[in-house]
């Protein structure tokens, strides 16, 4: 599998301009290459949905992960997921669904259809970093991952709402907490001193 070590190319799909900008930033800080598109249709176009091609985008960059919003006009994230999993060329690409709504039957349906994970919006940097590490591990050890996926086909929900619930099976990933050092020097985030933490919700 050709890919620069430790750099994933992520195809992000979201109809919200605000969310696309944020997810793009989260991914770039996590040292991922990003292609952000606004719809499922555009995503499939980018992937060149065509039985013969590999998971290479029209600009030649192999896609290692698809991160898609669930609620989109036209084609939902679920419908996009289905199309990807039905395609022999693209079905191996991990797909992660994002949604602002925690609707359990929806989550189940996505996981059953083959989504790797379900993230609750707004997506945090810790979510993206954890996801990246999980995918990198999977890419580096593909056979083992495929075996695990087959074994876990009646998978339980393992969606994540926040970084403190590290419920992914430890055999697949090690949790990273939000305080961890960024791995690449390019991701130097300067922090403003926070006078006081606001109460969360």
């Amino acid at each position, binding site marked *: 599998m050709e890919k620069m070590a430790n750099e994933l190319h992520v195809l992000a799909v979201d*109809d*919200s*301009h*605000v*969310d696309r*900008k*944020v997810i793009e*930033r*989260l991914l770039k*800080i996590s040292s991922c290459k990003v292609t952000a598109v606004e719809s499922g249709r555009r995503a499939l176009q980018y992937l060149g949905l065509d039985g013969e091609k590999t998971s290479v985008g029209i600009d030649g960059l192999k896609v290692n992960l698809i991160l898609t919003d669930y*609620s989109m*006009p036209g084609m939902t994230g679920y419908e996009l997921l289905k199309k990807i999993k039905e395609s022999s060329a693209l079905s191996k690409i991990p797909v992660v669904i994002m949604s*602002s709504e925690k609707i359990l039957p929806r989550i189940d349906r996505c996981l059953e259809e083959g989504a790797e994970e379900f993230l609750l*919006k*707004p997506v*945090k*940097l810790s979510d993206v970093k954890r996801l990246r590490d999980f995918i990198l591990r999977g890419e580096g050890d593909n056979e083992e991952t495929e075996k695990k996926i087959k074994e876990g086909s009646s998978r339980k929900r393992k969606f994540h709402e926040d970084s403190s619930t590290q419920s992914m099976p430890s055999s697949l990933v090690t949790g990273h907490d939000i*305080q961890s*050092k960024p791995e690449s020097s390019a*991701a*130097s*985030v*300067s*922090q*403003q*001193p*926070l*006078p*006081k933490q*606001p109460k*969360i*919700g």
Partner: protein
Amino acid sequence: MERNHHLHRQLANLRQSFFDQGYLDEQFIQLEELQDDANPNFVEEVVTLFYKDSARLIHSIDQALEKHPLDFAKLDSYMHQFKGSSSSIGAKKVKIECTQFGEYCRAGNVEGCKRTFQQLKREYAVLRKKLEAYFQFVRQIGPIETASRPN
């Protein structure tokens, strides 16, 4: 230099007031943490996109509320988008109004929808004014000196 320190303190207090008064929540801080020297205006850029999206959605909802009978499904869909982007920037009060509006939609409550939407527009206007003043202040006094985050 003292004056500068005083201004930075004023800015910090202004920022803190947004959280204390419930206009913004933790998500805004998440966005601030994505800023760095190479992307010093990231939050303002995202918020500017939010204004653009919001203006469009407010207009669409205003128009949809003029129709008889109301298309609640359409209204709910617009509001879902509005709620999403409010949530993404941490616009707490606006998000609360969006949730309320959504509930009235699903209940088919015309008066509730209209009343809540007026409330939402007010909250949005207040927030926008505050944030515009805040970012203008930020630009005027320059970046706050950053300390490295303790591990």
